[in-house]
């Protein structure tokens, strides 16, 4: 009898982990810091090839060591056998954290009033507790550029990591000033201006930008001469661009506009410039390559900008530019569906960019463009432990992302989307109560 009791106890004891696996009432899953040893993975370093059966040691937020059969005391072991380690993916243009519900003005924090507002800081308005952030990071997208939108100079964008309780904890080390280059294109089908009016508006905007640039240059010179200046926050910010402290991100899409923008950038001797959007880049790929300017393009999953374009114009754009010698990073230009970045990369890969270059376009290339390649963009010792573990090619739709680390924090693999799945897959009560 006692023996039976003992057996029952043992069986119950064995059941404990199974019983507690599903759900612990009131349990809150938090990012977890510390030392982690990822073992037996195929490491896709991006910069140093693919390493088979390799361990990665994470400590103090960094990739401390990469090698075979590593051991580390006190490290939590994460078995990565049969899995792949990739550097966290970087989306080079989003509204992450700047909007919660697309149509609700109360939750839109990406477009300030005014045409020239470069001093508006995206980093200030990023909501670290946005529901969108966990939804995004479990896809392996760990880092995003949040970009304000609107007038000529809508604000200052910020590169953020998708973990942290304050904007400063999230900040990933790059800020840039977007500029909407005057365009000869229509903003949408609802844009019913005549061709003449479009040209007139573009000329006016161009003149405005020229004057602003002139003013900012003067402001910078006065600053350098330590002149006493009245408070002028817009010029203060633009002066940083003129000086080359901040990058100018020139949003431009139509082929003709791209050529004009390149010319303008050369004329003004802009120190750090990045072309963004560039949806018709393939038409002027040679000119872009010759300019040496880096490009952030996307979304890849987009309708061509002209009715006469080939159906795959947007799919193949990144590949065509890259082949012409342009340095290309990808963006989704999304808010709630930044998680589609790997699929945008997959389409770009299939339509000419190739898998290897597509992977670079969401890792090391943006890290280089943003000047943070000492911390992000590849799996190398000393870089930030911002990476993810997948059971296959992360661009492949059915691949599952198993773990995500951001700055050495092990991210809980949950989000509201996943929790709703867990609750409703087998609803209780079902049809009858």
């Amino acid at each position, binding site marked *: 009898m006692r023996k039976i009791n003992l057996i029952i106890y043992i069986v119950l004891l064995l059941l404990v982990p199974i019983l507690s696996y599903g759900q612990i009432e009131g349990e809150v899953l938090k990012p977890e810091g510390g030392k982690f040893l990822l073992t037996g993975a195929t490491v896709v370093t991006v910069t140093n090839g693919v390493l088979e059966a390799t361990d990665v040691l994470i400590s103090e937020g960094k990739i401390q060591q990469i090698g075979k059969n590593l051991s580390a005391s006190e490290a939590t072991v994460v078995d990565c056998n049969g899995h792949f380690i990739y550097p966290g993916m970087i989306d080079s243009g989003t509204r992450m954290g700047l909007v919660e519900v*697309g149509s609700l003005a109360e939750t839109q924090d990406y477009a300030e009033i005014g045409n020239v507002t470069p001093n508006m800081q995206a980093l200030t308005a990023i909501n670290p507790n946005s529901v969108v952030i966990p939804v995004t990071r479990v896809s392996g997208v760990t880092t995003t550029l949040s970009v304000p939108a609107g007038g000529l100079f809508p604000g200052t964008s910020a590169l953020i990591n998708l973990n942290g309780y304050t904007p400063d904890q999230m900040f990933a080390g790059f800020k840039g000033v977007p500029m909407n280059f005057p365009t000869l294109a229509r903003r949408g089908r609802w844009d019913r201006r005549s061709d003449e009016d479009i040209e007139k508006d573009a000329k006016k905007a161009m003149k405005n930008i020229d004057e602003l640039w002139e003013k900012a240059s003067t402001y910078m010179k006065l600053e350098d001469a330590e002149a006493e200046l009245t408070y002028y926050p817009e010029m203060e910010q633009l002066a940083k661009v003129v000086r080359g402290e901040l990058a100018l991100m020139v949003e431009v899409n139509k082929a003709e506009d791209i050529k004009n923008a390149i010319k303008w950038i050369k004329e003004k001797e802009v120190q750090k410039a990045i072309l963004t959007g560039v949806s018709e880049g393939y038409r002027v790929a040679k000119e872009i390559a010759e300019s040496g300017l880096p490009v952030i393009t996307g979304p890849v999953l*987009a309708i061509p900008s002209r009715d*006469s374009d080939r159906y795959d114009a947007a799919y193949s754009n990144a590949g065509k530019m890259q082949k012409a010698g342009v340095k290309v990073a990808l963006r989704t230009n999304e808010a709630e*569906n930044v998680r589609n970045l790997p699929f945008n990369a997959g389409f770009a890969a299939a339509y000419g960019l190739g898998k290897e270059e597509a992977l670079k376009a969401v890792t090391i290339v943006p890290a280089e463009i943003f000047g943070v390649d000492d911390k992000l963009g590849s799996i190398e010792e000393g870089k930030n432990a911002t990476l993810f573990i997948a059971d296959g090619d992360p661009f492949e739709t059915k691949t599952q992302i198993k773990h995500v680390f951001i700055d050495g924090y092990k991210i809980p693999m949950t989000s509201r989307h996943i929790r*709703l799945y867990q609750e409703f897959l087998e609803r209780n009560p079902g049809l009858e109560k």
Partner: protein
Amino acid sequence: MKKFNYILLCVLLLVANGLTAQTPKGSVLIKNATVLTVTQGTLEETDVLVQDGLIKKIGKDLSAPKNVESIDATGKFLMPGIIDAHSHLALDVVNEATAPITAQVSMADVINPFDVGIYRALAGGTTIAHGLHGSANAIGGQSITMKYRYGTHDPEDIIMKEAPRTIKFALGENPTRVHGRGKNLQPRTRMGVEAVIRNGFAEAIQYKKQWETYNASKDKKNNTITPPEYNLKLETLADILDGEIIIHCHSYRADEIYMLINVCRDFGVDKLVFTHVNEGFKVAPELAKYTMGASVFSDWWAYKFEVYYSTAYNAAILMENDVITSINSDSGELIRHLYHEAAKTQRYGGLTDEQALSLITINPAKQLGIDDLVGSIEEGKQADLVIFDNHPLSVYAIPQMTFVDGVKYFDINDDEDDQRLKVSPTQMVEPVYLQAEDERCMHGVELFTEEAANFTHTH
């Protein structure tokens, strides 16, 4: 007398034209493909013979009859043409937003066969799309099932004549914004939406009764009865009650989905499909038992408040609860890669290949009432087929050829740059659009509410 002869001749010619006018049908032999039949598993290295627009034979080592082209599809994948249960492509307008019920209008009247979007959809493997009225009204206009026979200048050729009639309903934010907040008319709330639909159905029952009474008495001797006034709106609602029209209802929240299920049960209507239906997963058991299913987005959410509490696992939950589920586009962009949208159910919920493919083939066919004709590769079905270089659920898959009724409308090796059928004289200088307008559910509604004009996403 001469005049009479002339009229007779005209009538005869019209009849003859009606009898002979036919959409093109093709014959082709596709050899050695991996055939994803959807309903009968995957057949390796198999041939599919198409004759006069129909799948004649599926098997090994078939030989091409005389004058029938043979296509070598070794190493390639053949799947049924993709069916989109929710699109606004190739329609000139979509919203008759003037009243809470506009069942009298029909999308069949506004088909635009020149829309280059049709070609782009074909290049993404889509062969059939359900062109819906917009979502401004609780009961909107009648929709139309189209076969993408691109190249014709005649809207009639685009219509899938065999498909049953369908109509658009809409719940939640859109009809309450347009009518309640925009025009101070019911409905302003989800209570009002229910009332508008119940009132409409009740009025249609009365209308039917009036006609029944009239028809029963009109031939009686010495009757003084006069016919009721003909009303196309109520005729259409009566046809819904008689089960002749399938409802496709724009909906998001679980409560409003549940409401319409109850309304339809009360009125004995069972031809009911919910579309968008982002919170369908919360009422999956009810959807499974009482409806023809749910047609959902793969991952769209958070573009408005009523989709804030949604999940990309929606389709997977619905499928696992035996709801007939499809994935639709509602977009001229997504319609070009529904095979990829379907594949997302493998990331979000781990559906099998066959389940995922059914979301864009046989399941939307069921929801449109055309599953006996299309939606799978079976002998006797219409030959709407797509050849892919990779498995269509792979992100790297590229459609190679698309057939409708056995006629090839897209071939990647024969793909000219400019696929427009005509160039508008006002567009000799071609416009370049910075933002493609790809969501159309609320298209045209800005004329009625200023507020709506500011929306970026307005599905």
